[in-house]
């Protein structure tokens, strides 16, 4: 897909003026936060489980080569095939080869961010193979020729009247009087259309939430059941997963599952958690005849051992974006590539380079809510700071920003000068702030005051107030 991350600022402005988007984003603010809070509060062990989940992934990453080996052996033992892919292109090629061997004309897909990352649908389309997204949200955005704007709620940017219009446009055989005004009737229509596709497809492609070294199983966690029909009905099931999806044992899966659904949708457990191990067994009445797993690197090995290693703990629950004020304001598409929100701001520069994704770590107020809700305790703000440093070191941010930072640094490194200048400037600003104590216009601060007032400072600086407070304390003690 086209990367528009370098124009994040313009994307954001565009998003802020998009009335449909702003209406839809209200659902993110209203929906996810309360549900997560309630589910987390109802489980006293929740925070201890977050620690356990973090430790499991840290342990796994430290032994990743060995767990991958063990996993591969188990998949092979159960009659499955493991393919290794260093790059997105390699992974796409492997998928195509398998499809060609089956003379596949249609593939169904379960919801999978990794196939978005490797832009699989467009590739298959070019090769003459129809790729059908079966998750309701993914199906909607496929009709709209868009990409997901959220990692677990891909169509969260779309309102129901837009979905109706898309269905009427594409399902043009529907009678005009068919009611498509409510989510229920829209879902029924999608269900009906997609049912036929599951049976028609020769190949079903899913991602994986986990790969289990103990058993060689791939795990998907879903609510709709489309992922299960995708991996159950076609002759061939292909799993695409990046290498850090490995966990050692079933018990480790259990620990992480307890934080995954609660953090994502506020459910104690998602409706369907399915473990697939190899192809159909002798005597089995259903299930795929072939089972393939594609293990994809695509930049992960380069994150290991760096300050961005912790990002590899991510389980893609979406809690960070659900709680992010920047995501709430601009939505997911503004981030310009596959992964939005705070996790995207950290992951995108790692995967497509800081020259293209370097803007995203600036899309943060550093309020820290993402880290406070992350089930895997990933220090997202710290890593965004690392990226900002790299961006600065490589001279990638604009000149005004760089000079501004340099001027600031010159003051910050000279405390006496800093105190002197602020002690002169602050009272002056306080004076001009007037009785309202706000500026609706300030030279050089137009970027701020165009959208909101700037609060005027108090008449004395923090340092002055602090000194007075401390000396007051000393007097009281004496």
């Amino acid at each position, binding site marked *: 897909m086209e990367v528009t991350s370098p124009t994040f600022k313009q994307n954001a402005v565009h998003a802020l003026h998009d009335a449909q988007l702003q209406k839809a984003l209200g*659902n*993110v603010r*209203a929906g*996810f936060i309360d549900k997560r809070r309630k589910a987390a509060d109802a*489980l006293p*062990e929740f925070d201890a489980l977050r620690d*356990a989940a973090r430790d499991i992934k840290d*342990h796994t990453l*430290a*032994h*990743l*080569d*060995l767990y*991958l*080996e063990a996993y591969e052996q*188990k998949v092979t033992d*159960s009659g499955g095939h493991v393919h*290794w892919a*260093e790059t997105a292109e390699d992974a796409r090629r492997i998928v195509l080869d398998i499809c060609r061997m089956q003379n596949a004309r249609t593939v169904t897909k379960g919801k999978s961010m990794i196939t978005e990352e490797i832009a699989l649908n467009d590739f298959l389309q070019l090769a003459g193979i129809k790729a059908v997204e079966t998750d*309701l*949200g993914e199906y*909607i955005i496929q009709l709209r020729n868009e990409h997901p704007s959220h990692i677990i709620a*891909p169509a969260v940017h779309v309102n129901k009247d837009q979905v109706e219009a898309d269905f009427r446009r594409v399902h043009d055989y529907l009678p005009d009087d068919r009611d498509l005004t409510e989510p229920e009737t829209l*879902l029924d229509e999608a*269900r009906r259309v997609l*049912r036929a596709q*599951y049976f028609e497809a020769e190949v079903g492609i899913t991602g994986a939430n986990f790969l289990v070294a*103990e*058993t060689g*199983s791939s795990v998907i966690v879903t*609510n*709709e*059941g*489309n992922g*299960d029909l995708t991996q*159950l009905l076609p002759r061939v099931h292909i799993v695409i997963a990046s290498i850090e999806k490995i966990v*050692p*044992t079933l*018990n*480790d899966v*259990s*620990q992480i599952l307890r934080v995954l659904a609660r953090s994502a949708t506020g*459910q104690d457990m998602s*409706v*369907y*958690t*399915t*473990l*697939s*191990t*190899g*192809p159909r*067994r002798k005597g*089995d*009445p*259903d299930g795929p005849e072939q089972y393939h797993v594609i293990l994809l690197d695509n930049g992960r*090995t*380069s994150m*290991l*051992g760096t300050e961005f290693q912790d990002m590899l703990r991510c389980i893609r629950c979406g809690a960070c974006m659900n709680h992010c004020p920047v995501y709430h304001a601009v939505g997911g598409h503004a981030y310009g590539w596959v992964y939005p929100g705070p996790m995207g701001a950290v992951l995108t520069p790692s995967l497509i380079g800081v020259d293209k994704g370097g803007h995203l770590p600036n899309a943060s107020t550093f309020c820290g809510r993402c880290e406070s809700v992350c089930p895997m305790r990933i220090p997202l703000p710290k890593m965004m700071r690392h990226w900002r440093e790299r961006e600065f070191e490589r001279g990638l941010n604009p000149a005004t920003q760089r000079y501004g930072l340099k001027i600031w640094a010159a003051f910050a490194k000279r405390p006496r000068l800093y105190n002197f200048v602020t002690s002169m400037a602050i009272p002056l600003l306080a004076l001009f702030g007037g009785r309202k104590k706000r500026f609706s216009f300030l030279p050089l601060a137009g970027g701020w005051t165009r959208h909101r007032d700037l609060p005027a400072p108090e008449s004395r600086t923090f340092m002055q107030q602090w000194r007075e407070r401390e000396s007051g304390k000393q007097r009281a003690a004496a």
Partner: protein
Amino acid sequence: MSARDAIMGKLRKTLGAGADDATRRETVAKRLAKPPKGIVPERGQGSDAHKVKLFCQMAEAVAASVTRVRSPERVPKTVSDYLRAKNLPASVRMGADRRLKAMPWDKLKSLELKYGPSDGFDEVGVSHAFAGIAETGTVALLSGKDNPSTVNFLPEHHIVVVDAKDIAGDLETVLSGLRRKFGKGGMPRTLNFVTGPSRSGDIEQKIILGAHGPRALHLIVVG
């Protein structure tokens, strides 16, 4: 160099494997041989009666319906009552699971029984669960010769029979049960943990039941 070697090479270089490789291997082998238990929520612990009660509560909280019966003999009648209450045709799809087959279905003359995998045209499927999990109201279903997985997903209504004695407090207990049944590291082709009927919140975050899987999940707890 193959992709596998390239990826493994990078991993080993970064992870510092080499000198202490033996220790790392031992750590991994140990964990795989003896999976750590981890943190198990208090909520599911207690007497058997508590577990069954919690299981029913949690399942109902996620929009499943539950009927409790005293013995397996009562299951066919319960199924037929369900069909009547929901105004469904007197026909059910199921696997040849011997626990289900042993039930007195023949007493219900008008009920049509279809065995084998679902073709997508069944209103009602009946499965027997391997286990129930009280902490979340979940049932565990295993695929196998007599247990088609399609029955769990294609019918509009899914009825799952679970023995009260198979209801565990937590997921870990069920995982241990699987290891006993299939041997260490062994698994059925498909293991479905099902918690309530299929749903989607993809349009304006409004939760609707019956996305691609069954619109309704009815649990029959036996014993």
